[in-house]
């Protein structure tokens, strides 16, 4: 029995057990823990079966369908199962006593099942079927949680169903073009296609995956959808769910269409398919990142970032060079590690204080140092500063863009990074720094089972930052298996003819710098820690009744600068589409007036029109 079957069966069994034990949360908890531990174990040992193929005992249109294990889906597989396991461990305590949590583990398992199916599928039909399962379970995932959840889940659904329909068209179109659903067969025949048809088919697939990976014009479902559900789901969704869209894009761009085919799709000179794709990716980085500045809710802020970070992955893929693609793929892993870490920290705060409203929190560093540290590691990764992992992948991407001759895409990435620094500082400042409100005086740090995932992820975030080679080995294998050039990596970074990156040196120098600074620090006389109310306020007396924290409208000036653009362009476009559908519906509805004489006229008109048209046809 192959490991793919074991994985999918375990996941399915998890779903069934969760449904069966829907009355007992405790059983659900431990069953899920066991299921996800099993999934993680089996997915990690799966590398022994890479390259093997397994068929379903069912045929569609005379085609055998099934699963295959490649390095690419092994990479995504371990990410999915790993992060699910951490989410479950974190949820054990987090979900205690939460309202509406009976479906929690069920939808989580179902979603994982769907995702595993998608990534391991070896043909379009399996891919599509699991894609649908995944979309629907995402919808279910999003609709659990807060009051606003169903509404925002609905928004997602509208986008997802659109994407599904487009994907379905793509699946069927490629079947009618190639006569097969199998990825490898399609890959073999792709060269026979005319250029315009290739472009059309590729666009269909890319557009439908863009929805799931929240690329700029079709991203607006994500922030609300992700932030209104349970915070642990926010972590899970931002960390891995969105990235299945990226998986699809990688698979189709490189696995099925292949680099040579894509590079043929050129309009004028440099303006080719990849470039256009890159422009969308750049917009994805810039626009959502700056929208994040406006957010007053920690979850929403991070959700916007998870849109923006998707742009980095895509722009890396769009760069088309080995370095850029490696950066894009590596960023998926990195993003998953730090975003989940950040959201776990937020969840911890929410667990203790009951809110994620950034205007209400503050000063929690004194009460929850571990969560603070987790958030700190996470935001350094998110902002892409050394020595955390986010830096490495972003470095790859920048370098690929600069050397590939895409300065404006590179600057978009820079703008995104700066916007990220701004908003993550707001996040950490408004939650953990500043004045501690009196009502949070008795807040405690979260328990061990919630700290454990955070510690693990902190190690991952820092470890991948210093030793990117650990993941790069796998990524190089993926690149080779997709027929791309591999990046010459070492344990500490990469080494190419035109420059190298050595994270060990960066890390060591940083440590050395800290050491020197520490010695200088020790040279001064001792210090004492003082109360937050012992503070400069131009001679005013501060106490617990004075709310002096600065966190409301943290970046008001910036908002003044970018407001005009944002309002004009983005909001109006979004409202436009919804308004159009409503208007069309309203007009169409009026066709049915309810008056029989109108209907009579319709029949007579139809009769005449039919005569006229059919006369031409016959």
């Amino acid at each position, binding site marked *: 029995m192959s490991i793919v079957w074991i994985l999918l069966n375990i996941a399915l069994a998890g779903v069934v057990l969760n449904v069966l034990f829907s009355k007992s949360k405790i059983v659900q908890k431990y069953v899920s823990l066991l299921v996800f531990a099993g999934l993680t174990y089996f997915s990690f040992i799966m590398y022994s079966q890479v390259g093997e193929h397994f068929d379903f005992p069912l045929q569609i*249109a005379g085609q055998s369908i099934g699963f295959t294990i490649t390095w690419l889906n092994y990479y995504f597989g371990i990410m999915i199962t790993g992060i699910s396991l951490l989410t479950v461990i974190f949820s054990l305590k987090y979900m205690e006593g939460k309202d*509406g949590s009976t479906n929690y583990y069920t939808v989580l398992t179902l979603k994982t099942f769907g995702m595993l199916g998608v990534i391991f599928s070896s043909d379009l039909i399996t891919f*599509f*079927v699991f894609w*649908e*399962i995944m979309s*629907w379970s995402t919808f279910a995932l999003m*609709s659990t949680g807060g*009051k606003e959840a*169903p509404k925002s889940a*609905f928004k997602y*659904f*509208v986008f997802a*169903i*659109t994407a599904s*329909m*487009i994907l*379905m*068209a793509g*699946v*069927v*179109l490629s*079947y*009618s073009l190639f006569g097969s659903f199998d990825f490898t067969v399609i890959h073999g025949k792709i060269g026979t296609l005319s250029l315009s048809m290739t472009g059309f088919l590729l666009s269909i697939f890319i557009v439908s995956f863009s929805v799931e990976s929240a690329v700029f014009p079709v991203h607006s479902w994500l922030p609300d959808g992700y932030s209104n559900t349970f915070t642990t789901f926010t972590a899970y969704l931002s960390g891995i769910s969105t990235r299945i869209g990226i998986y699809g894009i990688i698979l189709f761009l490189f696995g099925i269409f292949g680099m040579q085919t894509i590079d043929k799709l050129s309009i004028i000179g440099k303006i080719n398919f990849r470039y256009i794709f890159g422009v969308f990716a750049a917009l994805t980085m810039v626009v959502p990142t700056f929208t994040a500045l406006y957010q007053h809710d920690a979850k929403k802020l991070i959700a916007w970032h998870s849109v923006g970070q998707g742009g980095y992955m895509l722009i890396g893929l769009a760069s088309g060079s080995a370095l850029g693609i490696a950066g894009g793929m590596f960023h998926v892993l990195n993003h998953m590690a730090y975003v989940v870490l950040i959201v776990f920290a937020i969840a911890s705060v929410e667990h203790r204080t009951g809110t994620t409203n950034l205007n209400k929190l503050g000063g929690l560093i004194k009460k929850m140092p571990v969560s603070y540290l987790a958030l700190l590691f996470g935001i350094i990764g998110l902002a892409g500063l050394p020595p955390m992992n986010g830096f490495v992948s972003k470095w790859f991407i920048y370098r690929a863009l600069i050397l590939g001759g895409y300065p404006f895409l590179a600057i978009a990435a820079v703008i995104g990074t700066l916007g990220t620094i701004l908003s993550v500082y707001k996040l950490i400042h408004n939650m953990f720094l500043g004045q501690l409100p009196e009502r949070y005086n008795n807040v405690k740090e979260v328990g061990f089972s919630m700290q454990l995932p955070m510690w693990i992820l902190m190690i991952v975030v820092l470890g991948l930052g210093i030793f990117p080679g650990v993941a790069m080995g796998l990524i190089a294998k993926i690149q080779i298996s997709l027929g791309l050039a591999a990046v010459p990596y070492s344990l500490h970074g990469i080494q190419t003819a035109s420059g190298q990156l050595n994270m060990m040196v960066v890390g060591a120098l940083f440590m050395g710098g800290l050491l020197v600074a520490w010695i200088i620090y020790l040279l001064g006389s001792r210090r004492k820690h003082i109360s937050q109310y012992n503070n400069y306020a131009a001679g005013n007396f501060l106490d617990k009744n004075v709310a002096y924290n600065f966190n409301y409208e943290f970046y008001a000036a910036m908002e003044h600068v970018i407001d005009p653009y944002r309002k004009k362009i983005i909001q109006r476009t979004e409202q436009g589409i919804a308004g159009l*559908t*409503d208007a*069309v*519906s*309203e007009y*169409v*509805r009026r*066709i*049915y007036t*309810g008056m*029989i004489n*109108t*209907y*009579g006229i*319709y*029949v007579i*008109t*139809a*009769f005449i029109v*039919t*005569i006229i*048209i*059919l*006369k031409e*046809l*016959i």
Partner: protein
Amino acid sequence: MVNPILLIIVPLGTAFLISLTASFLKNSTKYLALLAMIANVWVSIKLLPAVMQHPINVVIAGVKPPLGINLFVGPLGAVFSILISAAGLLILLYSFKYIEGDSQHKYYTLFLLLITGSHGMILTGDVFNLFVFFEILAISSYILVGYEGKRNGLEAAVKYLILGSIGSILILVAVALIYQEAGTLNMADLADKFGMIDPSKRLMILVFFITGMGVEAAVFPLNSWLPDAHSSAPSSISAMLSGFVIEVALIIIVKFVYSIFAMTEILGFLSLVAVITLLVGEFAAYKQSNIKRVLAYSSIGQIGLILFAMSLNSTDGLNAGLMQIINHTASKSILFLVAGFLIVRTGSYQISDYRGIAKKMPVSAFFFVVGVLSLLGVPPFFGFFSKLSVVMAALHTGSVFNTVMVFLVLLGTIIESIYFLRIIQIMYNREGDVGSVKEAPFLPLLAIAAFTVVILAGFLVLPQITGYTGSVASEIVRKMQMAQVF
């Protein structure tokens, strides 16, 4: 071997029997109807294997065609008989609890007449009899639409009556023209002779027939009666009207165009009409607040989809259209039947009044969700496979026109999913409270569950189903010939 004429005679006879015995059997007449429907299902199932070998031709009253009248049962007839009688049986079971009052025998009489008409239209091999059965079907459905006797029901019934009459007059003119020009009313004979008719006369026959049948088949813009009629009829009748009655009319159009008139040139026009119908239906449904109107408009959209698939001029397309018919019959019946008890229990047609009803009626709500998912074409429900085959058939033709149309069809699906999901969300809203509402009774739920089983288990027997629909499709696509039939 069973005689297919039983399919017509049994319900017709039982209908008369019910009205005769109504005075002393009172409401127990429904068991007579049940017996008739069970017999019908049995006959149709018995017919199927035999018909698959060779079409059956039943000559009535001993006069051979083309002079006499006959029943012609090909795979089309057999499959549709099963569809009609099975759906009819389940809806009948549902009606046992749903229809209340003293004059139930009227309902069952008309119900059986509706079944008779549907069977007749499918099975007859004679154009004039087609008209007769069409009238039986139409008249019984006019009355059933107004069965509840409420104001809007009666209004809808009158509208339906007027438009339906226009339709039947057009058909009658077509029949008369056919007899005048071809000198025969037998379908197979007509198929042989139709090519010899003067082109302008052919055009007129075609137009009269298509517009006339189009009224019943709910093709835009002839379908203006449908939203009113389907939404104000009793839910069981809505289920039938949406579930197979309009499809029967549609399949008659398709059958005539392909295998009798053999005028495949006009299929492009039909598919354009189909897509317009689909978009109009879906967009009109988008803003409705009355649950049955939503379902009614959605039926228009689905008819568009089916007609689109069937006018692709390929066996694949017909096959896909037939699968879509099966899916639509099952899922739309579920939706209408569930909606029936939602309305009964809450006393309201407004979707907004069902806020949180899933807590009180969990089983019904679940069935509703399944119906919606299948209608939208979500895997692994049956609807997914039918929609997939529609899209596949359309794209397989390779024409740009059809590709564009596919995208419009998928756009329609998107709109459809939006409004359906909105309903589901309202039903599953946690905060909502509908007061003390009970779950629907067991028997109707059982009927609904049977439809659900079709949808859920459909993909397990997919090869068999495609086998049957495939032979139906190849029957339709082949031109009828007198020699083949006899």
